[in-house]
C-alpha cells in the first residue's frame, strides 16, 4: 500500500471572468501536515471546496488511497473520510454543544451517548469541552473546538483546516498544534490553510504554494526561509514598512471608564476602558475576535453614544456626539466589515466617498451634494491608494475585498484625521497592499496624528504599534510599550488560553 493519501491531478476550475484553479497537481501523504499557502484570491478556498465536494472541477481528477475520488457533495466527502473545519463556524448560538454536533450527523446517537463520546474524544485530544454548554456563551477558541470535535467523531483520514488560528490567542495556538501533532502521529493527514508563515514553519511537513490559481512552488517549510516563501506567494519582493522614530505629543483622545452594554444579543459589553492616546503614536489593540473590538469602534465612531464623560477629544467631552460631529473635529474611523458597514455595496465609489468625507472635504453646500467635488475626491483616493477599478462610477460590490479595503482606508486617511481608528485594516488584503496600508498609517502618525489600530494580526500590531494593549471580554489591558514584548506576555494580555490544556495522552 502506498504512502499517498490524496492525489490531485490537473485540477482546473473557472468562474465567469476568472480562473480560480489552473492545473493544480500535488499529493498529500498519510500522516503529514500539508500546508496550502497563498494570498487571498490565490484559489485556496476553491481548491479545498473541490476536495470537500462543494465545488466540481471543470477538469482534472483526484484519487484517494489509489481509488478515484469524485465527491458529489460534502456528505460523500465525509463518508470517504474527508472532514473540514471552516474558518467561519456553522454553529447555532442558541443550542448546546451536543445538539450542535448531533445536527451535523447522519444518524445521531442519543444525547447521553453523544455527550459521553464528546467528553471522551475531547479529553483524548486535549480539547476539553462541556457538551451541555450553550454555544452562544463560548469563546471563539471554544467554538473552534466544537467544530474540530465534530470532525474527529467521524474518524477522518484527512482533516482540512481553513485558517484555524485567526481566532486564537498564542497559547490556544500552541494547544491546537499539540492536538494536530497528536493526530498526525496517529496517521491522520491534515491540510492546513494559512498565510501565516511562522505557524507553517513550526507545524507543517510540506507546503504547496498557490498564486493566481496555479501551483508556483513546493517546499519543506522548516528548511525554507519565511522570506522566500512570502516572495513565492506574492511573486515579487516584499516591501517592509519603515518607521521613523517619533515622539509622542499631547494627549488628544482619552477614554475614562468607558463602559457600554452589548448592542446585540451576542455582542460584548465594554467594561471600564481607560486609556489616553497621544499625537504621533500608534496604539495597537490586539485581541481574539469577539472580545469587544466592534463595540469599541462603535463607541469611538459615534454610532453607539455612551454616557457623558467617557470619551473626550482634546478635553472636550464627545461621548454623546454623533459620527458627523466627531468627523468635523477630526476623529475618523474605518470599521472592520467593509461591505455594508464601511461602504454601501450597491453605491458607486463616488457615493461611498461622500459617505464619510462630506463634512471634512466640503462635498456639500446647504445640504446639497456637489457631485463634481465628490468625484474628484473619489478619484484622488483611487489614485493615491492604487485601488484597482475601471472608474469611480463602479459599485463598491464590484471591487475585490482588498481593493475596497484600500479605498475605505484611503478615504479616511486623505481627510487628514487628527485621530484615526481602524479595525482590521489589512484583513483580506494581499501582502503588498497590506504593507502600503501599514506604511500609510505610520506616515499618518509621523505627521502628528494619533492612530488606534485594532487588529487580530499580532505580527501587524508588533510591526507598527508604539504601545500595545489587549481587549479581553470587553476590558482593555494596561497599554505597554510594544518594543520588547514577548509572545508569552502578549498571550497573557490576550487572556491566556481560555481553560485549554495540553493533550493528556502521550502519542
Amino acid at each position, binding site marked *: 500500500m502506498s504512502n499517498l493519501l490524496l492525489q490531485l491531478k490537473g485540477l482546473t476550475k473557472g468562474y465567469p471572468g476568472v480562473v480560480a484553479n489552473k492545473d493544480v497537481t500535488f499529493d498529500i501523504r498519510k500522516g503529514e501536515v500539508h500546508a496550502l499557502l497563498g494570498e487571498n484570491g490565490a484559489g485556496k478556498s476553491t481548491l479545498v471546496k473541490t476536495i470537500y465536494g462543494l465545488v466540481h472541477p471543470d477538469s482534472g481528477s483526484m484519487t484517494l488511497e489509489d481509488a478515484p475520488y469524485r465527491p458529489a457533495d460534502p456528505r460523500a466527502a465525509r463518508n470517504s473520510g474527508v472532514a473540514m473545519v471552516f474558518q467561519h463556524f456553522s454553529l447555532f448560538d442558541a443550542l448546546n454543544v451536543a445538539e450542535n454536533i448531533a445536527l451535523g450527523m447522519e444518524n445521531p446517537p442519543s444525547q447521553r451517548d453523544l455527550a459521553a463520546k464528546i467528553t471522551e474524544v475531547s479529553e483524548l485530544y486535549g480539547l476539553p469541552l462541556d457538551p451541555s454548554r450553550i454555544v452562544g456563551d463560548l469563546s471563539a477558541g471554544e467554538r473552534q473546538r466544537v467544530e474540530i470535535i465534530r470532525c474527529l467523531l467521524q474518524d477522518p483520514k484527512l482533516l482540512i483546516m481553513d485558517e484555524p488560528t485567526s481566532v486564537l490567542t498564542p497559547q490556544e495556538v500552541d494547544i491546537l498544534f499539540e492536538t494536530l501533532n497528536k493526530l498526525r502521529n496517529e496517521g491522520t493527514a491534515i491540510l492546513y490553510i494559512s498565510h501565516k508563515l511562522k505557524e507553517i514553519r513550526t507545524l507543517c511537513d510540506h507546503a504547496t504554494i498557490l498564486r493566481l490559481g496555479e501551483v508556483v512552488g513546493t517546499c519543506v517549510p522548516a528548511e525554507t526561509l519565511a522570506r522566500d516563501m512570502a516572495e513565492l506567494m506574492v511573486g515579487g519582493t516584499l516591501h517592509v514598512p519603515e518607521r521613523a522614530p517619533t515622539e509622542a505629543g499631547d494627549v488628544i483622545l482619552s477614554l475614562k471608564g468607558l463602559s457600554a452594554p452589548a448592542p446585540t444579543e451576542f455582542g460584548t459589553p465594554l467594561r471600564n476602558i481607560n486609556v489616553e492616546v497621544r499625537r504621533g503614536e500608534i496604539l495597537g489593540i490586539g485581541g481574539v475576535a469577539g472580545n469587544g473590538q466592534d463595540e469599541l469602534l462603535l463607541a469611538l465612531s459615534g454610532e453607539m453614544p455612551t454616557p457623558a464623560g467617557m470619551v473626550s477629544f482634546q478635553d472636550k467631552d464627545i461621548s454623546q456626539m454623533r*459620527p458627523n460631529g466627531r468627523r468635523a473635529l477630526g476623529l475618523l474611523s474605518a470599521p472592520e466589515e467593509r461591505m455594508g458597514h*464601511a461602504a454601501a455595496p450597491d453605491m458607486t465609489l463616488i457615493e461611498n466617498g461622500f459617505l464619510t468625507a462630506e463634512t471634512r472635504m466640503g462635498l456639500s453646500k446647504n445640504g446639497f451634494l456637489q457631485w463634481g467635488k465628490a468625484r474628484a475626491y473619489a478619484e484622488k483616493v483611487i489614485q493615491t491608494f492604487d485601488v484597482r477599478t475601471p472608474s469611480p462610477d463602479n459599485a463598491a460590490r464590484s471591487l475585490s475585498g482588498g481593493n475596497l479595503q484600500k479605498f475605505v482606508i484611503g478615504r479616511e486617511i486623505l481627510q487628514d484625521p487628527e485621530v484615526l481608528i481602524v479595525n482590521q485594516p489589512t484583513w483580506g488584503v494581499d501582502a503588498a497592499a497590506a504593507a502600503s496600508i501599514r506604511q500609510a498609517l505610520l506616515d499618518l502618525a509621523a505627521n502628528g496624528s494619533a492612530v488606534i489600530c485594532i487588529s487580530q494580526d499580532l505580527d501587524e500590531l508588533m510591526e507598527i504599534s508604539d504601545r500595545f494593549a489587549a481587549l479581553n471580554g470587553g476590558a482593555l489591558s494596561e497599554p505597554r510599550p510594544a518594543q520588547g514584548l514577548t509572545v508569552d506576555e502578549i498571550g497573557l494580555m490576550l487572556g491566556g488560553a481560555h481553560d485549554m490544556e495540553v493533550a493528556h495522552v502521550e502519542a
Partner: protein
Amino acid sequence: MLRLEKRPQPSKAWTYAAPLLAVVITILLGGVLFWLLGKDPIAATRMIFWDPLFGDFAAFYLPELLIKAAPLILIAIGLSFGFQAGIWNIGAEGQYIIGAICAAGVALAFYPLEARWMIFPLMIVAGIAGGAAWAMIPALLRVYFKTNEILVSLMLVYVAEVLINAFSVGLMRNPDGMGFPGSRSLKEYPAAANGDLFPNLGSFGSGIHWGVITALFAVVVAYVFLTRHRFGFNVRLAGQSPRAAAFSGVNPNRLIILCMVLSGGMAGLAGMFEVAGPSGQILGSFPAYYGFTAIIVAFLGRLHPIGIMLAGLLMALTYIGGDAALQPLQLPSASIQVFQGMLLFSLLAVDVLTNYRIRFSKGAIA
C-alpha cells in the same frame, strides 16, 4: 437547466427596460384574460389603452387622465422616499382619507364665509397635517415600541374608512341634504372649490386643477432632493445598507419619522385636492384606492420621480380605459383591479433580471 446568477453590478439597461417589458407582458396577459372571458382581446386592449388617448372621444378622456393621475403621482412621490429607505408605509389610503376629512372640516367650519385667500390655503395645511398625523401613529409606534409599520399603517386604513363613513352620516352631514348621507358639496362652495383652472381649454375643460400643478411641482422637487440633496442620499443609503447609514451619521429613527410624515403629508394633500375638486364631498364612497394603487405606481416608476410621473399616467389610463370598456364589453368591474395587480406582479418578476442574469447550464447543481 435554468440558473440565476447575481450580476456584479445592477444592469442599467434592465432598470429601465423592466417596467416597459412588464407593461407589454401585462397587456398580453390581459388579452389572454379577455379571451378566456369570451371577449375579443384585440378590441378590448385597444379600447383600454388606445381609444382614451387617440380615439374619437380623446378630448373627453384627456382631462380625466390628469385628474386621476394627479393624486396617484402625489401619493407615490411621497411613498417613494420611504420605500427607498426600507420604511414601508402601506397605509397611504388611510392618510389620504384623513387628509380629506381634515381639509373638508376646515372648509365646512367656515361655510359660507367668502374668503378664498384664507380658506383654500388653510385647507391645504389641514390636509397635509391630517395625513401626516395619521402617518405619525405607525411611525412613533415603530420608533418607540418596535411595531411593524406595514401592519399598523395598513390597519389604520380601515379605521379611516370607518371614520369617513361616520362623518358622512354624522358630524359633517349636509344639514340641507334632506337626510341623505354626505357633506355639503365643496365644489359648489367657491371659497373651497378645487376646480378646473382652464375650463375653456378644449371642449371638456383641461382637467388641470391645483392638484395637477402640485403633482408636477412635486416631481421636480423630489427629483432634485433625491439626486442632489443629503436627504435623498440618506434615504438611499439607509435602504441599501442600514449599518453603513449609521456609520455615515444617519439617525435611523429620525429618518423613519421624516419619511412617514412626508408620505402621510403628501397623501393627505392629495386627499384635500380630491375632496375639494373631483370628488367634491365627504361621503362613504370617497375612498377610491388611490392610496393602494399609488404603491404600484411607485414601484412601476422605479421609485424615481420621472418614472413615477409616467407610471401615474399609465395607471390613470387603466382606470379610464377600463371604465370606458366596462359598458360596451360587459366586463366585470374587478377586471381593472386584476389588470393593475398583474402589472405589479409582472414588474416584480421581470425585475429579477436587473440584479440577476439567467444562465443555461447542463449538469446538476450540487
